[in-house]
């Protein structure tokens, strides 16, 4: 991707983010029901309520509120959460790493298992592994992450309780983290017991997020790999006497990966959006969990900050995918 193209894409993201900001802001202001009423203690005087309203700026008109808010956002200030009485930026910053770690583990799981299954289906063409992969991708695509999460809790948490189904780390463990990136920190500092503990908590939510994507990837890789196997360059490799698995992994897969990258890019944003439910189901302390809490509590500054955070994540992922895509496929590099 040329720098000019990259910058143009970056510039195009601005109206999108602004649109998201406007919609969520206006949507939340036309709500009947006053967020302030959620936080006043019984017996507060009318003057106290008025003070509180002006403190959070709810006494101004909607365009005025929006202008103030956008100005603050530009300066990196997302306001103060009403329900948590904390700086929204700081809240998001402390919770975002947990979500990023979850998404990272999920995407690695999804890509690894999706590619492995797709290749297996082609390697054992017309034999039982292909049927199993087909069945898996059919079911995996149909059932969304939310239901997978509940199923895992039901089966692996309740019926055969072998894995923890809530939280990020057993609070009894001693682990004084210097950063909110527990997993990376434990890996770097060599606390393998903590890594194992973290992964035990991560595996079910990550798997729930990963399954639909893994299923979709398996199907796409299988189709494009099967197509690539009929191409001349594969025939050439065969004539040269390469082994079947080498042809699959080294020659054909390289070409079959391009549609897979596109798909991963589109689905990656769905995966990140899925954290809202999955983190709530598994009581995992990330921004998704925080988002449901914010909505139920009518915490307007927090909702706005979180929606904007998600939108920025989505835009960033799309840019990243485009960059990967043009690295893999020389034909789109032209522009």
């Amino acid at each position, binding site marked *: 991707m040329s720098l000019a193209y990259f910058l143009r894409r970056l510039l195009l993201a601005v109206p999108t983010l602004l649109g998201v900001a406007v919609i969520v802001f206006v949507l939340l202001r036309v709500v009947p029901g006053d967020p302030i009423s959620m936080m006043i203690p019984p017996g507060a005087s009318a003057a106290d309520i008025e003070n509180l309203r002006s403190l959070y700026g709810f006494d101004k008109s909607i365009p005025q509120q929006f202008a103030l808010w956008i100005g603050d956002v530009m300066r990196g200030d997302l306001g103060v959460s009403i329900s948590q009485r904390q700086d929204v930026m700081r809240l998001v910053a402390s919770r975002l790493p947990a979500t990023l770690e979850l998404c990272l583990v999920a995407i690695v799981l999804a890509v690894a298992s999706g590619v492995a299954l797709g290749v297996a289906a082609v390697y054992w063409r017309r034999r039982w592994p292909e049927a199993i992969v087909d069945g898996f991708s059919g079911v995996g695509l149909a059932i969304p992450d939310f*239901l997978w999460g509940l199923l895992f809790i039901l089966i692996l948490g309740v019926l055969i309780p072998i894995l923890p189904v809530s939280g990020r780390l057993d609070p009894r463990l001693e682990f004084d983290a210097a950063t909110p990136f527990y997993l990376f920190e434990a890996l770097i500092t060599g606390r393998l017991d903590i890594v194992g503990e973290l992964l035990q908590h991560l595996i079910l939510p990550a798997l729930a997020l990963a399954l639909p994507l893994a299923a979709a990837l398996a199907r796409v890789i299988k189709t494009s790999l099967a197509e690539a196997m009929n191409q001349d360059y594969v025939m050439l490799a065969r004539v040269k006497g390469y082994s079947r698995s080498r042809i699959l992994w080294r020659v054909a897969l390289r070409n079959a990966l391009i549609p897979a990258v596109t798909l991963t890019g589109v689905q990656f944003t769905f995966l990140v959006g899925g954290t809202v439910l999955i983190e709530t189901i598994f009581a995992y302390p990330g921004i998704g969990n925080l988002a449901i809490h914010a909505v139920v509590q009518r915490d307007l500054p927090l909702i706005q900050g979180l929606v904007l955070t998600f939108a920025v994540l989505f835009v960033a992922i799309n840019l990243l995918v485009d960059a990967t895509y043009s690295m893999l496929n020389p034909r789109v590099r032209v522009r």
Partner: protein
Amino acid sequence: MSGRLRFWFGIGVFALLVVCALGAPWIAPHDPLEQDLLATFQPPAWREGGSADFPFGTDGLGRDILSRLIYGARAALTVAVVAAFLAGLLGTVLGLLAGYFGGWIDALVSRLVDIWMAFPPVLLSIVLAAVLGAGLHTVVIAIVVIDWTRFCRVVRAETLVQRNQDYVVSAMTIGLRPGAIVVSEILPNVMPLLLTLFSLEMGIAIVVEAVLSFAGLSVANDTATWGSMIQDGRQFVNQAWWLMALPMGCIIVTVLATNALGDGLRERTDPLARTARR
């Protein structure tokens, strides 16, 4: 599973759903809202202590699970059909306009879709539900507002393809007005795709209802829905796992069926796939 078998599985489940939805008052053995506080947490009939009176047991308020599942099918089907139809209508109209006329209409619609895609869909639906208040109509509105983009993107892309086909050019040549071309020439050719999307959307709608119930934002307590049953059962999952498992099973089977139905419809209506099958 072979394609034919899957298709009939989809038809069968859908038919069962329709029967349950229409005939709920006659099929259900009990009133789904009738509480019996002397018979709470009855296990299903096949477990020790269960009785044939409550085939799937009762919940924490002594309500019959089977009857609630049957009435839940009514809510699920209503939401699925109404929401999928309205989302399809909105998305199709915008997609046809954008694909056929291009220019500023296309630019506007495409930008709108882009903005929509930058929202986490689940978060948007939950915000909407919080704004609109609980109720099945809220579930429907949330689905329409979020999922019209699915229809819009597909219909727009397909219209762009169809627009350059010879039959559309001929229709232009004989002087048909744009409106007539879109409705009577292009729309029928987009229909097979729409049918498939519609079927898939019904499954999605049922899941969205469950998601909103999960966040405590779907319906008031006077309606039995699968989503609210899952949410109720979740609190007692360690004592009575079937309370959560049964409605989950219903949703999973329904979603698999709408997918099978969608795939089957595509194979049967798409001329290319039809010839490939022979």
